[in-house]
């Protein structure tokens, strides 16, 4: 294996994967897949789980007639079973400039998001689901359509690895576009810091949910952003815009924390309203723990 390949595969940790593989990535919504999988389908299929009896119509496979029912009722009924199918998982990765922020200088929010996305992609493909990636950076979008081929992982990881934080957060139009673009039901997982207008963001979530997609979002926040531990006069340089602000942190701290608090509450309430699986993630948390909680809670639903 080449060194380049090795760096791509660094996004996942085999130990973490082995521990998380016991929790399948599930969805409570029926999915329309192309092959048999773990997930419920809106269609009837050939799984072992009985669904219903249906009157025979010409053209039905006579092998599916229930002869016992015919013997008792003298009518033809077809026995139908639940169909299990695979799902399409869309991983939307915000690669705006703000995602490059890192208070410890090691793990940026984008690095953290990459690990979460890569691990989820691996788990999904391993259970036969198709995974696609959308890296949203400024006005450019890198779009990898979903595939369930294990070799597709390399493409996904490669795209993720090459994604660099740059440009302004242009998440909103891209999420709307994504909602329209995905034709069939899918699980859409968004990794972002969501530094955008809250009302429009909730509207995006609504749009995605309206398209019957299962939406999960990982809201990535750096510890420094939530604590604002500055005391001395500081010049804050915007990571997305060529602008800066020289200010007294002591003067604005209270208002900053208030604004942030309102935003976090707003996004949380909005997600609850549209049944969006919302995860607030502080980047000093263990990503394994975050994913374990995410998968476990979805399984328990």
């Amino acid at each position, binding site marked *: 294996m080449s060194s380049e390949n090795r760096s791509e595969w660094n996004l996942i940790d085999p130990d973490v994967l082995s521990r998380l593989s016991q929790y399948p990535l599930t969805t409570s919504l029926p999915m329309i897949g192309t092959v048999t999988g773990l997930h419920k389908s809106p269609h009837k299929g050939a799984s072992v789980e009985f669904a219903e009896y249906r009157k025979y119509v010409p053209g039905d496979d006579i092998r599916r007639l229930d002869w016992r029912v015919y013997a008792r009722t003298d009518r033809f009924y077809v026995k139908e079973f639940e169909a299990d199918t695979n799902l399409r998982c869309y991983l939307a990765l915000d690669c705006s400039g703000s995602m490059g922020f890192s208070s410890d200088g090691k793990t940026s929010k984008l690095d953290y998001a990459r690990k979460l996305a890569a691990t989820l992609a691996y788990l999904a493909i391993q259970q036969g689901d198709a995974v696609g990636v959308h890296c949203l950076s400024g006005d450019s979008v890198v779009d990898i359509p979903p595939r369930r081929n294990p070799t597709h992982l390399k493409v996904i990881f490669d795209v993720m690895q090459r994604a660099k934080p740059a440009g302004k957060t242009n998440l909103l139009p891209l999420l709307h576009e994504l909602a329209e673009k995905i034709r069939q039901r899918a699980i859409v997982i968004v990794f972002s810091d969501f530094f955008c207008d809250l009302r429009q963001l909730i509207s995006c979530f609504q749009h995605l949910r309206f398209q019957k997609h299962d939406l999960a979002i990982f809201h990535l926040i750096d510890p420094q952003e939530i604590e604002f531990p500055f005391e001395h*006069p500081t010049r804050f*340089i915007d990571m997305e815009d060529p602008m800066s*602000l*020289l200010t007294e942190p002591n003067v604005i701290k209270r208002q900053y924390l208030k*604004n942030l608090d309102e*935003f*976090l509450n707003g996004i949380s309430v909005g997600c609850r309203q549209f049944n969006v699986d919302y995860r607030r993630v502080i980047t000093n948390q*263990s990503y394994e723990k975050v994913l374990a909680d995410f998968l476990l809670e979805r399984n328990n639903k």
Partner: protein
Amino acid sequence: MTFLEPIMLYGLPLALLPVIIHLLNKLRHRSVRWAAMMFLLSANRTATRQARIKQWLILLMRVFAVAALVFVVSRPLAGGWLGWVFQGAPDAILIVLDRSLSMETKINGATKRETAIQILANSARAYQGRSQLILIDTATRTPQEIGDPALLGRLSFTAASDTAADVIATLESGLEWIQRNKPGSTEIWIASDLQKSNWQPDNERWRDLLARLGSATSNLRVRLLQISNPSPIEDNSVLIKDAFLKNVPEGKLLTIELAVERTSSEQVNLPLNIFVNRTRQYIEIPCQGQSVSYRHKVLIEEGDKYASGWGKVEISADSNVRNNIAYFVYSAPPVLKAAIISSNSIGGRILTIAAAPSKSDTNRMAELVPVEKADSLNIGDYALVVWNEKPPSGELAEKLRSYVRSGGVVLFFAGIDEGNFEGINFGKEDQTEQDRALKVASWQENEGVLARTEEGLSLPLNELRIFKRRQLSGGEALARFEDGSVFIARKVLGKGQIIACASSVEPDCSNLREGIVLVPLIQRLFESGAKRIRQSGMLVCGEADFRAIGESVVPVEGGSDYRANAGVYRVGGRLVAVNHPEVEDNFEIADSSEIRSVFNGVNFTLFEEKYSNRSSFQSEIWRSFLIAMVLFLIIESILVLPPRVRPQQQFVQRQENALVEDPK
């Protein structure tokens, strides 16, 4: 406001240190690449005015704290009274200046009076043009309006004087001025050394005075500058008690009785210069203790030229030079008269002989006056009044009372009826048999009229036989009978005294007529009463007033104004010596607590002059600045407290902290 360490005020710019540090911090800001700019910009836009005010308040508190610290080390004094800063100018300020002799004590090169004037002038300058400034000095007690406080030290009303201060009377003059002029708000500034004899804190007049002051003006404040630090140098005072001529075979003998009061009790030989008619004699008298009496005798040559004259006694200069000289005048011994008021001819005769045994040998005369003629008697001409009757009442009693107050002496014998005079009461009569006469058991031999003679011999009171007596009560008992009842009593009234005897001189009353006790008793009382006559030329500064007489007063020696300065003056054709009051030799200072209790109920502030390097009508107030500094720091620390985290935030943070694990 003045400061004891003004050089420390150069550190005042240090108060700007917090501002400079703040600006430097702003200049030395660090740059941080920041993601959550939307919240930051929003916070910066909407950062409340309150937060910015709070930030400036914190800075202000730090500036104030440093400034207060600088003031603390500069040792500020409540300049011109701290009240200037906070209180408006009153309508009138009554400046009461203690011009008593004790204020002439020098400390650090300036007298207490000069220090007081300087401070008062400095303090009054701040009110010039805003308040009416009225000066009342204790010597003249006349309110004077002051135009320019800077001239306060040059006024004759603030010059040195040898008078005593009657603070109550001075304030009463101030009260009259207030009642006359009716100013709205009034401040009374008093500068005094708090000499107890001047202030009389126990005097009942204070209560009435302050009540009237309170009702005379709506807003009264009293500020007292206490200049009572004892001088580091010893202060001795000399005073002439008596100076009189006596005829002796060699000529005329001048006897000068002088008293020296000292602040020290160290044993020393005190040098004295005694000038008699410009002839100086130098002597040294041994001094032990704080009070010394000395009698000096000078033989005056025969001749009319020196039949009268003046002199002075000087002691060496000390911290108060004005009480180091005492003046006296003398003249030919006057004929001393005694009035014997008695309707009983036998008693009257006995007493007349006892008062003037031999007209040829002495200059004493006795006049027998029946009691009914006592009304028309010019009692002031007599050195002694012997009253062998029932004590008088009505106008006659008042006349006798004023005679005693002016220095006269009255000797009462028990009359035929009961009676009383000035608290001395002659009660019911006791009579005994001739062979069971009452005897005198004890009497005061150390001092007073019954004291031993100069040779140390006791008066033979034990040989007296009393057959009739009246129960005597009131006054101080000088002699007692065997049964403990009083035989002779004494009461001091003003400058004079009243002596009362429980019996009488008649043969059926006692054997006093034998004279063994009666003659020395009456002669001694005669001598005591004679001082009033002899000392008509010895006056007390501040009490003498010749304006009523209408005679010209010419200074001979010493001061130029007899009302304020000690010295020798010629009034009409006679000489008078004016000396400082005896009360000024009482160096006792009233406690500040006593003075505070006097002004209880009045807005009163006491300031103490510490005699620091600079004069000030003020007290140190560095403690106030220290408290202020602590307060500023407490406020600053409260303001810099981080904002309280809301319960919701606390929950989120707890949740997040619980999730934190060591990243692999």
